[in-house]
């Protein structure tokens, strides 16, 4: 598998010390506990989720099995650049995540890509960045060397 699926934790703020953790495969263990989490808490959790890893992708499906052509395109682009150590979150398994990330990013569609906690865009933007060379530069800023640079070097 080319990506790591991180766990997230949400805690009730009302005083109860109940934590709900999401295991790596993305399923929610306690729906009732999650319902008690406020929307503001969820937005705060998203803020932490996008900063925990250099590259974060909210997508439909998983990198091993994308469920949407646009999400698949993002996975393929990252793979082409040798970026295989990123956090991906499957919004199809979590409706609250799916709607919450749209509010958080102020972006209406999935997939959504974050670099160093900053929203980059969706499939169209990532594709254009790949085509015009900007993606190589942006990855460099993250301290990630694009595999395409090595490919080009070998070709010379």
């Amino acid at each position, binding site marked *: 598998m080319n990506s790591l699926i991180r766990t997230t934790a949400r805690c009730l703020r009302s005083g109860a010390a109940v934590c709900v953790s999401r295991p790596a495969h993305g399923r929610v263990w306690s729906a009732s506990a999650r319902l008690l989490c406020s929307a503001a808490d969820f937005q705060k959790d998203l803020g932490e989720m996008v900063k925990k890893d250099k590259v974060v992708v909210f997508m*439909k*499906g998983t990198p091993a099995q*994308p*469920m*949407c*052509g*646009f*999400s*698949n*395109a993002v996975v*393929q*682009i990252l793979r*082409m650049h040798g970026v295989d150590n990123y956090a991906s979150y499957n919004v*199809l398994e979590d*409706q609250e995540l*799916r709607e919450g990330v749209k509010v958080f990013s*102020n*972006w*209406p*569609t999935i997939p959504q890509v974050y670099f160093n906690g900053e*929203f*980059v*865009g*969706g*499939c*169209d*933007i990532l*594709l*254009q*960045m*790949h*085509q015009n*060379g900007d993606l*190589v530069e942006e990855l460099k800023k993250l301290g990630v060397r694009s595999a*395409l640079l090595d*490919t080009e070097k070998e070709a010379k």
Partner: protein
Amino acid sequence: MLPSISLCARPVTTWLSLTRPLAHFRPHMDPDPSRPVERTIRTKLTNVFQPEHLEVHNESHMHAVPPGSESHFRVVVVSSQFEGLPLIQRHRLVNEALKEELSSCVHALAIKAKTPNQWASDPSPGKSPSCMGGSRGDHTVEEKLKAGRE
């Protein structure tokens, strides 16, 4: 030259539908009255951006939704209003213009937002990747299709 990526994970026959002629926007032609969402998208993008060139493609047929749906669109907007703006800002402006549609009946929106100079040097609308069936059984898509019909 960066290699192009393959947007198909599996062979898909719907690529053939991409060879159909593009529906260029011409102000003197009436849009299809049987496609209200497409008409609304054209009108809003025209009003907001006064584009030099505008294309609105209903790509719903490429996805796992019923025939005649207006849920998946690709738009090309060429406007001098995009001068000096980064891609994300341009896309946010388009999203804002179509906010109502995106929160109701439109499930997916592929955007190409270019300045007139950029369009002149590369007038390609782009192609959407093949559907991988994510809309099938997706209740939020069903809700949006219902919203489009009402």
